[in-house]
């Protein structure tokens, strides 16, 4: 009988971390070089070097702008967004003990869009100052989380009820968003909002990354500090509590973390479904269900998936950009169906 060794195997860890990093860099490199405008690889690399290290290769201003300000910022944002949403999905699935939990299904994304749209179109503010879109999205996502928690508690709190509560919450907030857009937005605003609601990396610029990157990094750090605790939820809340987990505190901290991560990503790129759902399942398949390995895997796999999905959204139809949510849903919906089917089977 060979007992699995649980002591950290540093060489293996470093190899895996390096491989993940290389895969990420390759995905970003792919995203930077593929696009409507043909730019030679050499020019692309020179433009990157110019932007990153303040060098002075002779690159045309347009190429420099497309490579560095447009494609690179977009690719990095896609990575952060995919990683953060996948991480949020893994956290929600563990806390709620439900394979279908994720920000989009639970209505957190819908709440964030309502908040963002309220700010964009109504100019909602506090004390005379207009809120930023991120702040609006955050308040909206917290409101959605509160509604889900209330509905779920009212329905007995079982984990399948949480999903039903999430579906109801999504409907409520989507209806609110639609009401605001159809009654108050100009035609031009409405078109912009609709495109944004399906997810759009087109408007991403560097300043967005200065918000998204710290949030993703901090969110990941908070989640990693709770990795062991999340494992303890495997047999339910009472089991976790009897293992010494301060269940209420952990839930508040982690729900807030996922709400902030989701809100920030939604406020920048709009709602993107299914990433939070399918990536944790794919990552579990790769590294198992221990959260110390699952959470980093979600971050990396989610990032790579989203960067590739963004490339697809740009090249699938020539001369046109598909909303990113459309691409992720094209992959996500069939996987969602498979999970639903498997959830029916006895454990």
């Amino acid at each position, binding site marked *: 009988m060979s007992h699995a060794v*649980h002591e950290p195997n540093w060489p293996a860890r470093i190899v895996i971390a390096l491989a993940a990093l290389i895969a990420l860099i390759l995905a970003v490199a792919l995203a930077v070089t593929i696009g409507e405008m043909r730019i030679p690889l050499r020019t692309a690399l020179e433009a990157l070097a110019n932007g990153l290290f303040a060098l002075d290769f002779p690159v045309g201003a347009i190429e420099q702008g497309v490579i560095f300000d447009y494609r690179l910022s977009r690719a990095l944002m896609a990575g952060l967004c995919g990683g953060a949403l996948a991480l949020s999905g893994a956290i929600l699935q563990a806390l709620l003990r439900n394979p279908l939990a994720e920000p989009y299904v639970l209505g957190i994304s819908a709440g964030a869009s309502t908040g963002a749209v309220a700010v964009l179109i109504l100019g909602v503010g506090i004390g005379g100052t207009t809120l930023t879109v991120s702040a609006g999205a955050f308040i909206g996502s917290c409101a959605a989380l509160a509604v889900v928690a209330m509905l779920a508690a009212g329905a007995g709190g079982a984990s399948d009820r949480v999903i039903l509560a999430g579906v109801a919450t999504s409907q409520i907030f989507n209806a609110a968003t639609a009401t605001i857009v159809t009654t108050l937005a100009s035609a031009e605003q409405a078109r912009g909002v609709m495109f944004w609601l399906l997810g759009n990396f087109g408007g991403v610029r560097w300043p967005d990354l200065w918000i998204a990157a710290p949030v993703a990094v901090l969110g990941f750090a908070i989640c990693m500090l709770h990795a062991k605790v999340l494992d303890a939820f*495997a047999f339910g809340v009472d089991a976790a509590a009897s293992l010494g987990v301060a269940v209420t505190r952990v839930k508040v901290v982690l729900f807030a973390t996922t709400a902030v991560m989701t809100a920030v990503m939604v406020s920048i790129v709009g709602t993107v479904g299914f990433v939070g759902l399918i990536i944790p399942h794919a990552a579990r398949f790769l590294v198992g269900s221990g959260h110390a390995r699952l959470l980093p895997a979600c971050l990396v796999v989610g990032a790579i998936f989203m960067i590739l999905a963004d490339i697809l959204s740009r090249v699938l139809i020539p001369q046109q950009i598909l909303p990113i949510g459309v691409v992720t849903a094209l992959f996500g919906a069939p996987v969602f169906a498979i999970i639903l089917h498997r959830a029916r089977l006895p*454990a």
Partner: protein
Amino acid sequence: MTLATREARWGAAGRMIVDGVTLQAAPGRVLGLIGPNGSGKSSLLRLLCRLRNVASGVVTLDGQDIAGVPRRRLARRLAFVEQQATTDIQLCVCDVVRLGRTPHRTALASWNGQDEAAVNQALERVGLADRHDQPWHTLSGGERQRVHIARALAQEPSELILDEPTNHLDIRHQLAILGLVRRLGITCIMALHDLNLAAMFCDEIALLHEGRLQAAGPPDTVLTPNAIQRIFGVSVAIGSGASGRRHIEYLVETEPGSGGAGID
């Protein structure tokens, strides 16, 4: 000294479920909680390990109110085995037992030799050392319960609380689980349904009815025909079985067509 309650009360939805129970466990002994369905056994166990907080009264561990003890420290003293806890997550036996080390590890601590030793020792004590890597969902009910006990032992507790650990197990596995609990040598408090098994494996028995403690003491003094008739509504005769041990026989009509046993 070990776990004790004084006038512990707890209710839900306007109904008292544990209604002023004063009880003390003896160190290193097995205390059985007996009572009809809904008599408050499970709730009392949850109060003992602070999964619920008492509405009034107090639960003490070594004389100290457990309400003030941090949950992690409590989990290094007290382990709890639920009725049939299961999971959809793909885990193997060692993953489940490793969870028992949670209260001993800080957020950044890596898995060490002491943790590994505790897990292997716990698996050996429940007789599942050779199942270390077996997937959880391929285990039988009795094996799952033994893995849960191993997980609890990996916490290195001095008190073990079990909620009907033999529920839904066949008789051989019931006997195996209770024999295992009996041999652990730590203070055990467990809810049980079967009166004969309780008499066989418990040092002391506490009889609960409608949230109140009716009697507590050695099985001989608690499990009397009168008490069983009064609380369970079943007539019994107590004799000595083939082994010379006390045996509780249920005096009900089992012939067909005679009107049946009847619950009134």
